[in-house]
């Protein structure tokens, strides 16, 4: 029996939520969890305090201020891999222009039902 993305996301959320009131404090990790299972592909946005939301697209950190705006505008349902890559490139272009920290190299990893594409 495979662990579904939904199950994994909820498990992690419960661990994060347990940690916020623990002696050690919250796990300092904001996450994006993506996976492909029987119900198709899904993406989950997790917070270090344990909030969970299933999303069509997501971003974490300061880059999210720039990327989410572009994705709100350009994302549509059932995009192809190529269209997805174009959208990511658009975000990267904007970050290179407008973001205060210079990141010369980006790595794009695409994940499909058989793992890394």
């Amino acid at each position: 029996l495979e662990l579904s993305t939904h199950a994994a996301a909820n498990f992690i959320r419960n661990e994060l939520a347990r940690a916020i009131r623990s002696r050690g404090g919250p796990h300092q990790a904001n996450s994006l969890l993506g996976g492909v299972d029987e119900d198709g592909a899904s993406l989950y946005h997790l917070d270090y305090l344990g909030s969970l939301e299933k999303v069509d697209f997501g971003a974490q950190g300061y880059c999210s201020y720039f990327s989410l705006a572009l994705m709100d505008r350009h994302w549509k349902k059932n995009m192809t891999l190529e269209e997805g890559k174009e959208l990511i490139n658009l975000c990267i272009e904007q970050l290179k222009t407008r973001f205060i920290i210079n990141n010369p190299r980006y790595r794009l990893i695409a994940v499909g039902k058989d793992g890394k594409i």
Partner: protein
Amino acid sequence: LASDVMTVQQKLELQTSMYKLQEHRDMKPSVFNNMLSSFLYARRFGPYFVEPLVAGLEGPDNKPFISGQDLLGASVFTDDFVVCGTSEQELFGTCESFFKPNLEPDELFETIAQCMLAAVDRDCLAGWGGVVHILTPEK
């Protein structure tokens, strides 16, 4: 806190499911309200940061029941309306003006929608969208 909202929801679902299995009937909204109150006060010195509202129909004549609570479980019962959120103050104003007792479902929907629209227009943190749920005996 969004995380606490989910945690409280999950723990309450456990309580209501256990109640349903043991008592073979649904929990009444007033009972649920008291359970929630005790549940929140149990964490008096490390509370869940939620501000719950309870709404339901109870009894054989499906009388509406609404109440609001603070994060420690202090509940207030009213027969007109309860509000909470970033636009709480604005909503108090709009609801106080627009509310009338004994509204039909459609009229109630319209009234709630107008209250929410007017309130969020005066709040920079609210207004992305709104959802209205109307509970009726037939569901």
